[in-house]
């Protein structure tokens, strides 16, 4: 008799895969990558490729050394590489980028068990490691549109200018189109918004985290007397809200917990920007909230269907 497959229901699957999700994230990051190359030149492309190659190699090697199944195919290490590159200044030495990539994949991701297991975002944590290891190189900003090399023009980021209180702040259009100093992928708001819209459309991310994060940050900025639109458009806020805070592994799985998480990111970002010694606080805010994610998930849980609300009489059938 011909053998049949006997397995547990369901016998249907949506066809979604981790690989397809990561590919969508890569597509979503493409506008920002293109903008980076347009604004900062070919060196941006070299930096992105360097980070991706280093991340892929680190992932492949560490999986092999640990004798675990090969996971390069899920493309998550490619996403980490791109995100790390987009969080670096164009002038950084490629070897420093390689160092960051290895730290992201080997230390932050694989040492904790690989995809789905890391408790902080690998790209952001690597950026923080680099910020603390190479503070001056990580804050050496090149003006977009100037070639790299001898005639490169050194500039400051919009938030840097704001903190120093010197020089003229860029206008909204410059911020929107990315004609300011900053990391590869953070300056052009337009490109990030196009990519973010793609992720929302493909339902790779839900609007909960970016909307809550941006609204909280804008509201708190306004409350502190800072220009909310300027705050949203400058620094890494948009890139962070759409591509980093939405990282599945390090953010809560339940939407109400995501609201708390994203609101925390927003508050911390603005507090660091307004009162910290650093001009920018997106990386630290997201990583801090990553660390708090297990606690948020303990406190904010979905209420099982048909369970009475806390405080309501048990067994009340009309408890909505």
């Amino acid at each position: 008799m011909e053998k049949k497959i006997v397995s547990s229901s369901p016998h249907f699957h949506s066809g979604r895969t981790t690989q397809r999700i990561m590919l969508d994230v890569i597509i979503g990051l493409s506008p920002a990558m293109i903008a980076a190359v347009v604004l900062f030149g070919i060196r941006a492309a070299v930096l992105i490729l360097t980070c991706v190659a280093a991340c892929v190699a680190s992932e492949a090697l560490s999986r092999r050394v640990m004798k675990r199944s090969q996971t390069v195919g899920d493309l998550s290490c490619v996403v980490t590489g791109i995100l790390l590159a987009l969080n670096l200044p164009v002038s950084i030495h490629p070897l420093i980028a390689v160092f960051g990539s290895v730290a992201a994949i080997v230390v932050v991701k694989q040492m904790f068990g690989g995809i789905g297991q890391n408790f902080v975002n690998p790209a952001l944590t690597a950026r923080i490691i680099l910020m603390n290891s190479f503070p001056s190189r990580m804050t050496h900003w090149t003006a977009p549109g100037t070639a790299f090399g001898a005639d490169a023009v050194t500039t400051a980021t919009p938030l840097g200018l704001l903190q120093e209180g010197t020089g003229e702040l860029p206008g909204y259009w410059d911020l929107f189109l990315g004609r300011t100093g900053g990391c590869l992928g953070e300056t052009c708001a337009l490109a990030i918004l196009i990519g973010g819209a793609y992720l929302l459309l493909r339902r790779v991310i839900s609007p909960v985290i970016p909307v809550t994060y941006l609204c909280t940050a804008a509201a708190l900025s306004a409350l502190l007397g800072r220009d909310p639109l300027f705050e949203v458009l400058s620094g890494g806020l948009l890139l962070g809200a759409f591509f980093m805070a939405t990282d599945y592994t390090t953010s809560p799985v339940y939407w109400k917990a995501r609201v708390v998480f994203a609101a925390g990111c927003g508050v911390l970002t603005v507090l660091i920007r307004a009162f910290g010694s650093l001009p920018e606080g997106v990386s630290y805010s997201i990583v801090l909230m990553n660390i708090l994610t297990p606690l948020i998930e303990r406190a904010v849980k979905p209420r099982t269907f048909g369970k009475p609300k806390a405080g309501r009489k048990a067994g009340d059938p009309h408890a909505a």
Partner: protein
Amino acid sequence: MALPFPKKPYRTHGGVAVPHHKNTAALPTREMPPPKRVVIPMQQHIGAACEPLVKRGDHVLLGQCIGDSDAPLATPIHASVSGDVAEVGQVFISGSEPAVAVVIESDGKMERDPGNVPPAPVHDRFQLAAAARAAGLVGLGGAGFPVHAKLSVAPDKTVDTLIVNAAECEPYVTSDHREALENGKNVLDGIYKVKEILGVHRVIIAVEDNKPDAIRELSRIADNPALDPNDEVRVLTLKSRYPQGAEKVLIQACTGRKVPVGGLPVDVNCLVMNIASISFLASYLRTGFPLTLKRVTVDGPAVAHPQNVIVPIGTPIRDVMEFCGGYKAPAKKLLMGGPMMGIALYTDELPILKQNNAVLAFDDRAAAEPAPTDCIRCGSCVAACPMNLMPLKLEKAALRRDAAALKALDVLTCMECGSCAYACPAGRQLVQAIRLGKALVHNAGR
């Protein structure tokens, strides 16, 4: 005071958009000639097994009672062909303990048992429940919960809303759809019997919006003042989103009420009956002829001529498949029920049961399953769960055999609809793990 009818369904949580594959919806049901032999298990659904009332060599008539039990959730079982009992043996049905089965060799005459006469008119809920039991009726939508138990509403409970479940949210399955199109008048007869005896003045026939012809046909009957004088029966069009037909989700969509954890529909004053069950109840009260036939959707990529077939209960699936032109590709997977909640069978020699609404045969491609990879915590399973559970945490707790954590996560509320596993991009076997989790909680409670 009459309860208002909802104009549109109430919001429900979660669920997934599944492909419909309702290939057989437009094809008229065909009746299958009696098979050579039938295998009738004495346990077909939840509750105790029946004792066989016949022995080897006995001659039985069509509709004759061949098995019964005093247990509260048992329903009598009737011969679906006339002929001789060849054997009282055992049958192994996938996913359950071995059951005693009565095997009848058909004499091809389909000679009816003259003892099956229309029951005396029913006047109260006890008589109605007794009639449903005598008919051998169980929920025909797939779960097979005995109808008499459902109708025996405790005296301290009231039912203000009868919901007729014609949502049919499982892919492929169209047997309820065909029931609505071919037997609509009978459905209304059944509704009127139940609603009059239970004193219900609001009856909602719930249909998903992917069945516009069924909605039209049922509305034509329900909105006809000659048939429904006080306008107490209405059709409610539901969004096509799996699992709208699951009892708790359906009650929420129709009334906005939530059945409490561990509770029953009657706890929120609702009674839910499948459309085929209520229609059959009407014909039983008219003819006195018990449940021996079942409309079954035969479909799937490996079936030559997909269609709905009216089959004598106990007919081996192989015979049903042959009636539908046989397999056009090797059947790698054989399902009893729909692809989301159906049971995978190990052989097509197994018989059709009372509550079977579909038999599906999958070819190589359809049977292929994704290889599980690591959970990426995307939250798709949490968003998809209609019971608002956290399948990823249930899976983890089940795999580390943590009964206390499973209980805290309300594992027993899971109805195994499969939405989580369907949505999971890592292809994790979430439902399988949850089943293990339920067993762990049950064992820990002992």
